[in-house]
């Protein structure tokens, strides 16, 4: 028997009202502004932009405020908003070699053109709580030094000149877009990179860590990590030429990985690539390790059955909005489904008992 049920509207409305009050918290404490979140919780804003797959710091800050700091909920809000925007077009590929580097380090070469620039990093901090931050107000004088304008070439370029690393040949192919066509396998590298760029940071980190611990090991060195602003240029049809549409901060990681060579290729290094919106080096390094692990087939390596080598496993489970949508739906009413399960188990038990009774009587 099917019974239609209505009700709960008032409870839902009231729950939302309470949610809004809880979001605001104690009203004797000053309210947080969007600008404060954007400026002072920048790395949270960066994560929401990267995984929400939409570069707009103010929107990401609003989403974080609305989501009470739940970043996956904030990413959900951004993804939903994104779908309402008409798309004006696609940019020309950004030129990371022309980045205004705020941070640029290499773990493979000490001395290199452009130098090692540490930037605003947590590295080398002692990870001790700073109670001065709990007291009010602090303004810090940052030392400055004359900046000599110089090109900062990619580290992999040096290796490429000697033929020691696999070449990354330019092409102008139109890449697949998983926001327009469902992600289908086999996924080429462009599609995998799009998927990884918006994948959950924690998931990507776990996958990357598993390769370091031996599940599909690829011996990665961080050839280079660079963070800074790049111009985004797009062809404007009504003008007939391209203009810079904006400037975005990105984190780029290039790993240099061991490779023993194959029948067709001499021994050479191979590459993993990570590119993420905002300052987000954990995600960017993770992305490049996972990218490299997923390349086993095109590089003629063995599939050792490691999770990070399994494109279906990685790409279909890395999206935190898909994952949380499916995971959390099981808490919503399943009364009818469950009713049929209940009836089934009662019937099975009844049958089992009936079989047991005559046996007991013997």
């Amino acid at each position: 028997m099917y019974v239609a049920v209505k009700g709960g509207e008032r409870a839902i409305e009231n729950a939302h009202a309470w949610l809004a009050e809880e979001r605001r918290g104690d009203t004797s404490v000053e309210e947080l502004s969007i600008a404060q979140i954007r400026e002072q919780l920048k790395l949270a804003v960066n994560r929401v932009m990267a995984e929400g797959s939409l570069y707009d710091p103010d929107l990401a800050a609003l989403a974080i405020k609305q989501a009470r700091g739940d970043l996956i909920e904030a990413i959900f809000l951004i993804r939903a908003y994104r779908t309402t925007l008409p798309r004006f077009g696609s940019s020309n590929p950004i030129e990371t070699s022309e980045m205004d580097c705020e941070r640029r380090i290499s773990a493979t070469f000490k001395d290199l053109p452009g130098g090692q620039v540490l930037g605003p990093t947590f590295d080398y901090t002692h990870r001790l709580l700073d109670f001065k931050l709990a007291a009010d107000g602090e303004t810090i004088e940052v030392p400055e030094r004359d900046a000599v304008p110089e090109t900062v070439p990619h580290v992999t370029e040096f290796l490429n000149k000697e033929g020691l690393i696999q070449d990354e040949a330019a092409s102008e192919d139109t890449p697949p877009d998983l926001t327009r066509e469902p992600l289908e396998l086999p996924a080429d590298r462009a599609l995998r990179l799009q998927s990884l760029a918006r994948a959950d940071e924690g998931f990507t980190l776990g996958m990357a860590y598993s390769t370091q611990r031996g599940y599909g090991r690829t011996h990665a060195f961080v050839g280079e990590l660079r963070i800074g602003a790049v111009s985004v240029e797009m062809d404007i049809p009504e003008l007939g030429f391209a203009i810079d549409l904006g400037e975005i901060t990105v984190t780029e990681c290039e790993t240099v990985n061991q490779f023993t060579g194959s029948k067709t290729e001499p021994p050479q290094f191979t590459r993993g690539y990570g590119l993420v919106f905002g300052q987000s080096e954990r995600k960017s390094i993770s992305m490049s390790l996972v990218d490299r692990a997923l390349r086993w087939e095109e590089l003629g390596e063995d599939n050792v059955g490691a999770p990070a080598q399994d494109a279906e496993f990685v790409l279909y489970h890395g999206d935190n909005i898909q994952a949380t949508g499916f995971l959390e739906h099981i808490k919503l009413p399943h009364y009818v489904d469950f009713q049929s399960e209940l009836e089934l188990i009662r019937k099975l038990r009844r049958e089992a008992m009936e079989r047991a009774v005559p046996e007991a009587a013997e």
Partner: protein
Amino acid sequence: MQEIQQKERKAWLSLMATSPDGALTKLFAQTAETPAFDWLRPPEIGSVMVRGRTGATGAPFNLGEMTVTRCSLKLSTGEVGHGYVQGRRKEDAESAALVDALMQTEAATELQAAVLSPLSQQVADTKSARARKAASTKVDFFTMARGED
């Protein structure tokens, strides 16, 4: 309409697109009266898919989108202006389109001096301050004296 070099137009459009929120509109309001115009395309917010390249030099891939506001208008004197700015900024997009159109008129010299040059200076100052801070975090390696002799 005077002959305009595409390179110059590209430069001012790019500058306005990347200018900080509200800066262009403020400078423009201080400089010129809004001329009579008709919308060809009123301001609209949309997105642009940003692409990167595999390994920085290889095949393109889709990195993610960014928000962009655009509009187009025609002055009563006939010049057409296009405004494209990063983010959700309808006022700045309108100012950009107006400046783009007016830069094709005799007002160009004044606008260059009172709007575009100061805007360009603002952007350059911000960039240079960050570059100077980055430079101060550049590592100077030195070799420790060895205790062999």
